[in-house]
Every structure is written in structure tokens, then in C-alpha cells.
């Protein structure tokens, strides 16, 4: 019983981190049709900036996190203009893979040059340490906080996509970019805004997940397969698909590590092959943007 609860809580927290980081990847893939292998690099940059702000500049956690997210977005937006805009569209798959692998390598080298090869921590504020009592079981506060932020992100994205003007335009553009542009939707601005949102969420995930996915220069390469798996299983462009896939993968992966540590990864990939073989467009079919 204790193990089951432990798996559930760790798995859900892990899944929420995966969701927060991957949802931006999913939406950019659904909207701009870009396989962005550099997405993990944005999460890594966010984490490193927050760590720098908190440890070197001595900023409080909230300020460091907010500043790091903003700065990551500001740094990434010119990339959208200069690099990504040239490779939008599904015809450029190979160019996308290569350009974004190249970008990832450059970011990895740059992070190592600026911050060194050692593992970086982001010190948590006092109120996130310790445990919260939840009936008979105590949950680490950090995990509870991550789960709460993840739920807030899902709710916020739902509201944004279903209840706002922006969401209507975004869904229209995902379904048919040419038609949306013909109807007068400024797709270029929409792309830039979506890209910024995705990068910001990735940075947030990188900061919150630093305890689970440790910050080191190879972060961007090590975890990108995981983020891509979430998107592939969840279906490109689907927020709820990403949430479902991230939670499922988070729980499966955590359970595998707890119960069958020797073959965890093997079953993870076997499950992914089976799902993708049966549902090549993702297990959670695309319904909303």
C-alpha cells in the first residue's frame, strides 16, 4: 500500500513535469509542424538561469524563477524569427531535425562554457521543504507543489484554448493554417506567441523539475527522447493528449523503476512501440488544439 501510494505520488509529480515541459513541444508540432529537438534545451536554459539567479545573485526562489522564465523567452524569440520560421511545415522534416540538433549542440556547449560541467541545484524556499500531511500519509511539499502547478497549467491552458479569442484562432490555425490565414488571422504573430508560450512553459518545467531531472549540460540531449515520446503518444497539437500521455508515461516509468528496476527502460520503449504501431497519430486522438 505504501509503495502504491509512493508510486502514485512520484509518478504523478513526474508526469506533471513531463507535461509542463512537453506541452509546448506538442503545440508547436501541431501548429507549425516543427519537430523541435531543441525544446529540451529551453527547459535546461530556464533551469540554469534560475539556479544562477538564486545561488549567485541571491534572489528569492519566486523572483529567480520568474526572471529566468522571462529571460529564456526573450532569448528564444529571436530564434523563432531567424531560424524556426524558415523550417515551418511538414515538408522540412529532415531540415528540422538537423537544425534543431545543431541548435541543441550549440546550447549544450554554451551552457558548459558559461556554467561549467557540474550539476546545478535550485535551492527551494523554506515553505516548499518538508511534508504536507494528507490523511494518514505525508507527501513531500515539493511534489505537492509540482502537482498543483501542473493542474493549474492544465486548467489555464484549457481556459486559454477554449474560452479566449486567442484559443479560437490557435485551434483554427492548427486545423488548417492556410484557411486561417485566408480568413485574416495573423498566423505569424500567432506562431510567435505560441512559440513564446511553449518556451516559457518549458523553462518553468525545467525549474520545477530540477529535483527530478537534474540540471547538467547534457540535459538537453538526455531527456529530449522522453519529451518526444510524450508528444508522439499524446498526439501532436493536443493539450489533453499531452497531459494524458505525460501522466501515463510518468507513472509507468516510476512504477518500472520501483518494481522492475532492471528492465524498466525496456518495457517503456516496448510500450511506446506498441502504442505507436497501433495508433501512429498518437493514442489520445486530436480533438482540440
Amino acid at each position, binding site marked *: 500500500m505504501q509503495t502504491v501510494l509512493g508510486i502514485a505520488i512520484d509518478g504523478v509529480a513526474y508526469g506533471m513535469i513531463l507535461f509542463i515541459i512537453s506541452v509546448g513541444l506538442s503545440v508547436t508540432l501541431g501548429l507549425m509542424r516543427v519537430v523541435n529537438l531543441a525544446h529540451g534545451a529551453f527547459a535546461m536554459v530556464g533551469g540554469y538561469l534560475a539556479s544562477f539567479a538564486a545561488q549567485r545573485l541571491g534572489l528569492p526562489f519566486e523572483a529567480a524563477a520568474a526572471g529566468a522564465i522571462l529571460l529564456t523567452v526573450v532569448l528564444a524569440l529571436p530564434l523563432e524569427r531567424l531560424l524556426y520560421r524558415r523550417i515551418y511545415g511538414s515538408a522540412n522534416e529532415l531540415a528540422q*531535425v538537423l537544425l534543431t540538433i545543431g541548435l541543441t549542440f*550549440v546550447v549544450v*556547449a554554451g551552457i558548459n562554457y558559461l556554467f561549467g560541467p557540474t550539476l546545478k541545484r535550485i535551492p527551494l524556499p523554506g515553505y516548499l521543504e518538508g511534508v504536507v500531511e494528507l490523511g494518514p500519509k505525508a507527501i513531500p511539499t515539493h511534489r505537492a507543489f509540482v502537482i498543483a502547478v501542473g493542474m493549474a497549467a492544465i486548467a489555464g491552458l484549457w481556459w486559454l484554448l477554449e474560452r479566449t479569442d486567442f484559443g479560437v484562432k490557435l485551434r483554427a490555425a492548427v486545423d488548417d493554417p492556410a484557411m486561417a490565414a485566408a480568413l485574416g488571422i495573423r498566423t505569424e504573430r500567432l506562431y510567435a506567441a505560441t512559440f513564446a508560450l511553449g518556451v516559457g512553459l518549458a523553462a518553468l518545467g525545467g525549474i520545477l523539475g530540477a529535483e527530478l531531472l537534474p540540471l547538467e*549540460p547534457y540535459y538537453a540531449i538526455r531527456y529530449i527522447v522522453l519529451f518526444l515520446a510524450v508528444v508522439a503518444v499524446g498526439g501532436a497539437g493536443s493539450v489533453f493528449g499531452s497531459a494524458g500521455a505525460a501522466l501515463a508515461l510518468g507513472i509507468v516509468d516510476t512504477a518500472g523503476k520501483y518494481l522492475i528496476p532492471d528492465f524498466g527502460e525496456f518495457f517503456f520503449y*516496448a510500450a511506446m512501440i506498441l502504442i505507436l504501431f497501433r495508433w501512429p497519430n*498518437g493514442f489520445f486522438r486530436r480533438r482540440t488544439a
Partner: protein
Amino acid sequence: MSPHLRDAAGAATLAAAGLAAFWLFPEDLGLLTRIAATALYVLSLDLVLGYCGVATLGQAALFGTGAYAAGIAAVHLVAEPMVLLLIGGVAGGLIALATGALILRAHGLALLMLTIAVTQMAHEVANKARWITGGSDGLSGIAPDPVLGLFRFDLYGRTSYLFALAVLVVGLLVAQRIVRSPFGLACRGVREDPLRVAALGGSPRRYLIGMYTISGVFAGVAGALTAVSTGIVGLDSLGFSWSAEALVMLVLGGAGRLYGAIIGTVAFMAIHHILAATDPFHWMLFIGLFLMGVVLFAPGGIAAAAERALERAAGWLRRAGARA
């Protein structure tokens, strides 16, 4: 020049350049041997990517399977190098046939993820089957017999290099025949327009699986060649980054041209040898910037850029001749 004559000239150039390198860099035969074996591996990727348009990140699964099959056979069964290459090729072809039917149904991201997943599973199996593969320590103790019973593998790596070069030249000749055959042309048709191939009565998927299997044979032979010439097989031969590196080398040289695969491998590994010796991160920065530059400014890689330059030079010469 007829295409076949040009192919023969290309293979002869490769052999001549390889022999020249043998005389020029006698200290670096180990590196040269790895370059020759890797060129064959990148050539195998070119067959699927350049001629069928399948963007895969799983070529290492085929290479590594061939390498481990040959390595395990060498430790336990036979030591004849040619037989080991054959075993590697058969193993690579079989795994390509088995997984190709699974992978090639998908497109885009799903296809990429399936190729990655197959590679990761193969990696995990090799890692866990420690009793036969050596796990993370790698498989060692491969001691092949003399090539054709005549040429002993010497300490300086001379035989290794010449053997690898010979296999690469033969591989290039065979690959040239394949891509010029009706089957190879049909594969190019699938790359350009699968719907039209289907409308003409061909089966795009069958062509793709056929070419993927052939590519698996090439990759398996390349893996076996690496195992035979270096004497060890490591887990990284089944790694994600080995797949990605093959892609980078191919695109650097120019996909869709067989000699592009060879040029790209030579350029990549030579620069890697120089830069990574100082700091691996310098190498990553360089190759990252280079990749972005190739995608943005020189989509055909080195081979296309060289062809353009040659055409320009030829045009200039013609004009100069006409003026005179």
C-alpha cells in the same frame, strides 16, 4: 561519360585516395580504419534517407546488431573475417526486415520515435545480456584469422586498414549498381511521390522495406567490419548518438549521392579527431554551428556545394574558351 563508367571512376578515385592516405598518414591507420568502416555505415543510411526519403534516427540498431552478431560469432564460433562480415550483414538485414515492417508504416514524428525506440530496446537488450555481450564493459576478445588465409592482422593496423578500404570500395560498387537498378529507381520514385508509384501499380511500402533491408545488410557489414578491424564492440554502437552522428555525417556530405556519404564521413571524423582532442564541448559548438549553417545556407551539403562550384568553373572555362 556513361553512368557506369563514372561509377567505376568514382570507385577507382576512392581506392586511390584511400591508398594515398595509407602512405601519407602511417601513424593514423587506426583512425583511417574507423573512417573507412564508418563511411560504409553512413553509405547504408544514404540508401534509405537519400534514395527513399525516410528520415530515420535508428540506423545504429542495424549497425550494432551486425557488430554484435559478428563479435559474438568471432568469440565463440568462427574467426574467418569474410564469414564474419557475412554474419554481420545477414544479422543487420534480418533485423532491418523485422523492424522495417513495423517502422515504415508510420510517417513523420511517429516514424522517428519508432526508430529511436527500436534502437533503445536493442541497446537495453545488449546492456542486460551481459553474459554474451559483455554489457557495458563491451565485447572483447575478437581475434580474427588472417584475411583469405593470407594477410595476418598486424600490430600497426596495416592489414585492418587495407581490408576496411577494400570492403568499402566493394560496398560502394554494389551500392552504385543498386541505386541505378530498376529497383533503385522505383525507390527514388517513392521518395518523390508515393501516391503516383502506387497508381502505377507499384507497392511503395514493399520498395521501402526492400531498401531498408538492403541498408540493414550494408550497416551490418559495416558493424562487422568495425568489430573485426578494431577487435571490440561497445554499447555505444547501439546508441542514439551514433544514429544521430550518421545523420549528421550524411547531411554534411550531401544525402542522395553515394560519394556524399563518404566525403561527409571523412570531413566529420577528421575534424572530430582534431577538435575533440582538446575539449569535447568545442567540438559540439563547432558541429552545431556547422549543421545549422548547412541547413540554412547549403542544403545539399559539401557534395552539392562542390558540384555547384565545379559547374561554375566549367561555365567560366567555356566562356573563356569562346572568347579566345
